[in-house]
């Protein structure tokens, strides 16, 4: 059953491609990282530079929603890691956008 597209965000707070929350989840998908490492990973993998306010605003929302959890601080930096719910949310977003990308590639004849 297909769900109707909505302009706003879903209950997980993730709806738009390029949504900072999704980029943070993507950065954490291969292991725990602290704030600076998340920014560096997002920049390296997607070319998008997350501002410091956007990064910590997203992290706090993801923690509130139970998608990410904070680990014990290492020196003055605190690493964050995905929860099971966060992994599910990211997998759902990736599945949705994989279909969008596949359709775009096919219709634009991109190899």
């Amino acid at each position, binding site marked *: 059953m297909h*769900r109707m597209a909505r302009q706003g965000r879903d209950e997980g707070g993730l709806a738009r491609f390029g949504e900072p929350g999704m980029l943070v989840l993507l950065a954490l998908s291969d292991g725990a990282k602290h704030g600076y490492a998340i920014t560096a990973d997002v920049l390296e993998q997607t070319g998008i530079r997350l*501002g*410091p*306010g956007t990064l910590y605003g997203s992290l706090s929302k993801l923690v509130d929603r139970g998608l990410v959890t904070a680990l014990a601080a290492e020196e*003055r930096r605190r690493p964050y890691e995905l929860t099971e719910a966060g992994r599910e949310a990211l997998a*759902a977003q990736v599945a949705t956008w994989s279909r969008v990308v596949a359709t775009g590639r096919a219709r634009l004849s991109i190899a």
Partner: protein
Amino acid sequence: MSTRSLINLLVRLFPRAWRVEYGAELREMLGSQRLTLSAIVDVVRTGVGLRLAGHNVAWRLIFAAATSTAVELFAVHRHLTDNILWLPDTPARAATLALLCSGWAPATIAVGKNVHRRLTRVRRQSGSVSVRDS
């Protein structure tokens, strides 16, 4: 103004509870990189946004209460009613009653959304709701 003072000022834009949890990390990150204009704008935008979001429900309730009080005083002053609520049996009384109640609809919706969000979070944390795609 020194960079340290500017960073402290920027972090203070965030709600107190948020600062307790994330303020030190944000301060550390801002101090470890060049403080560009875009970084400052980004922090200001996020901090003010979180502050407004945190007060959304409370401000709506305050606005609704203030509106109702003002309309009630006006209605009593103009001898439209002697009571808190009244029958809308004339156009003036109907309009005033509608105005009295108008602030409560958005306030009630905001409270309902807030309760729903909190319940969903609790249910998700207890594992009874899975995260859905958009």
